[in-house]
């Protein structure tokens, strides 16, 4: 599973980070770090919850 990060849409809500701080990393301003995220199998549910929590829809899930 991969999370596609549309960084230009990130507005720093940090809901993904609140759900899964080990998967979604933030910069010093509190916005998501650039780059798509490869998710290990055991973390898929957490990553899914984090991606689904984004109010801006900046995170897409790719199976």
């Amino acid at each position, binding site marked *: 599973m991969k999370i596609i990060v549309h960084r230009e849409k990130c507005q720093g809500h940090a809901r993904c980070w609140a759900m899964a701080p080990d998967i979604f990393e933030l910069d010093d301003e*509190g916005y998501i770090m650039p780059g798509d995220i490869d998710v290990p199998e055991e973390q898929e549910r957490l990553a899914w919850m984090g991606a689904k929590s984004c*109010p*801006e829809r900046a995170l897409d899930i790719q199976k």
Partner: protein
Amino acid sequence: METMAARPIPAHVPPDMIGNFSLFSSPGLEPTPNGDPQAASAVVHDGPRIFYSPVNTRDGKGTWVITRAQDQRRVLQDPETFSSHRSIFASALGESWQMIPLELDPPEHGKFRSLLNPLLSPKRVMALETAVRERASVLIDRIAAAGTSCDVMTDFAFPFAVNIFLRFLGLSDDRLDEFVGWANDLLHGDNVKRPAAARTIVAFIDELSADRRRQPVDDFMSFLVQSRIDDRPLTDMEIRGTGVLLFIAGLDTVAAAIGFDLNYLARHQADQQWLRDDPKRIVLAAEELLRAYPTVQMIRVATRDVDFEGAPIRKGDYVSCATMIANRDPLEFADPARIDLAREDNRHTAFAYGPHRCLGSHLARREIVVGLEEWLKRIPTFRIKSGTAPVTYGGHVFGIENLILDWSQEDAA
């Protein structure tokens, strides 16, 4: 409230797109004993996705009303078309400076956000948690020691939220009551009190920044007067605009949220008990309460003519994106009228969408969660005191007053 003289409806608005809904005056949105103004505003979902409300701002102007979350996202993510470049605070004084960053558009906006974001980032807020918790527990201990009922807004929600914010700004508590009075006059006062309060706040911020320029200390205004943007110091108007916004933004929104949350829990004993049974549930529950009881509407100004889902929006028109409306959109949330404290799939917009996402959102969240945790830890099963009725209101910023909670044994019997 001043009278709202109806203004002529612009000729380009088709008569069949005019709705009679207003966040200020529709049923349940005027001051209402035992009201539920957020639920009352969800009535728009029985109607079209966009319509024109002839009287829908504090000064009686008309706005387009965007009802669907998906459409609000589109509006608020597109500041080029839907600008927040207004001077609502300054114009009340006959001036034209902007509150910063709220009333700036990109790219200027981004420079100020980059300056301020680190001060209120999620990680920075974690460092403030001890102080937040300490403040909540002192206030609630005092309430618990004094008796078995209290006025939540005046005894807890306001002193708590305002104290945290003053501490962030580097101000002491001594003048807390005075600051709350200014905020009240500014947000809810009449035509005389509002500009007077605005002038008082501007003078206060100007004086504070002048002080900090002479003698910097470790606080927000000192940071601001020493900051640089585009390799230049901030201008006096920029410092004023930023200081004023941060001052007023933190004054009553968090307090109102805590009020609505405790009002809900007082009326829903099973949910109250469910949180008591496992306080770890409060973090997720607070998100659902933010979805159900947000308090602000975003207003944008069209920068050009644009047809939006069949509505002929013209340059200069106001467009309202009310958080409480998007948060009860059945296309965005399953069963939106139902408050489910365990709701997981919850991308609510209590803090808005787009580049103007509430700068203080992470601190606000922490205050709400800690406030509820400490309240439930220290106050036994509580309810609305019998014979009393909290008064809710809609409008520019939703709120609740006269919220008297009771946890005496006699009242329970």
